[in-house]
């Protein structure tokens, strides 16, 4: 049971977005522009950053929802997503993305944890200013989403397949016109 009265048939952020559509719209607009608009980081890479940060924040709903979307974009299996969360340094992602995940992980702990060395390392591996900016902002935004979802005590289905099955739909429809009831 969530801490406030929401439609319990709508898990995670969906019940909250249904509860307060006024605040849902700019959050979805933000997700759309940051995670899906034209960018030198692929949609799959950006969803991986979101998944990794949500897993660090131990937010079950967000890490599996965005893991499912990442899985669809990257056309990978669930084991790959799990490896990125558990041990990305030994996963098959690019060295640049590894360096960006270091930054994302520091942001999750707190903004001041990001160091000049981490930023220099990402740049050395080809990261642009825009990519560094977007990585920090994606991590920061998921620190918001994760707190919103867990801070209000929402429920989340435990079956991983629920999220994997929905990942395709979300990837195809995007966030801008997100209907929490659907």
């Amino acid at each position, binding site marked *: 049971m969530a*801490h*406030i*009265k929401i439609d319990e048939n709508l898990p995670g952020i969906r019940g*909250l977005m249904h*509860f*307060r559509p*006024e*605040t849902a*719209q*700019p*959050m979805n*607009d*933000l997700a759309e*522009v*940051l995670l899906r*608009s034209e960018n030198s980081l692929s949609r799959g890479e950006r969803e991986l950053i979101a998944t990794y940060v949500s897993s660090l*924040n*131990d*937010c079950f709903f967000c890490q599996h929802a965005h893991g499912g979307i990442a899985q669809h974009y990257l056309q990978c299996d669930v084991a790959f997503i799990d490896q990125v969360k558990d041990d990305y340094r030994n996963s098959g992602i690019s060295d640049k993305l590894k360096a960006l995940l270091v*930054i994302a992980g*520091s*942001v*999750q702990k*707190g*903004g*001041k944890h*990001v160091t*000049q060395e981490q*930023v220099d390392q990402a740049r050395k591996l080809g990261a642009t*200013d825009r990519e*560094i*900016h977007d990585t*920090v*902002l994606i*991590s*920061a*935004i998921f*620190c*918001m*989403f*994760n*707190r*919103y*979802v*867990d*801070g*209000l*005590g929402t429920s989340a289905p435990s079956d991983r397949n629920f999220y994997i099955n929905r990942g395709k739909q979300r990837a195809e429809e995007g966030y801008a016109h997100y209907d929490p009831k659907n």
Partner: protein
Amino acid sequence: MSYIPLEEHLPGITGLLEYSRETAEPIRELTQILMRGPSTLSEGERELIATVVSSGNGCVFCTTAHTAATNTYYDDPSLCEMAKKDIDSTPLDEKMKALLHVARLTGMGGKQVSTEAIDRAKKHGATDLEIHDTVLIAALFCLYNRYVDGLATHLPKDASYYQELADRLNKNGYVRIPEAYEQLKQKKTKPNS
């Protein structure tokens, strides 16, 4: 030095919001609805929530800016100082104290928000919408604090900047006022004005 090139005359969040206008727009809109939209929480109370969370996250720019913004609503500036240090000894009503605890817990992590903290707020009359907005304001400032410090933005050179910003936030809210940015740019080119 910030980690990415930002306009020198725009400290803290202001440089980031100009660097990335496409993401700034929905962030501003969300903030405007939460902080200035219709609510049973006053604008001052909502600024206080933002201040307590920013202080808990150790973000100097956001804490100083929102302390100044809070103080545009309260006669006694010691109230905000006290709330940052010890919520329960602050002369606020019981509902507001309970909501500030919910906000502070949210800042520490979503799972830190306990049923006890929520029940305390409800017992003192907090509505579901007030609890919702308190958690979301706290979560939103966790975003801002990480954005501002994660890219190592610089602090304003002159502390009077915060008072000007606070007055602007009180008067205009969080929507982008192009003239405000133009004024800042003109100031930059005329250092003695």
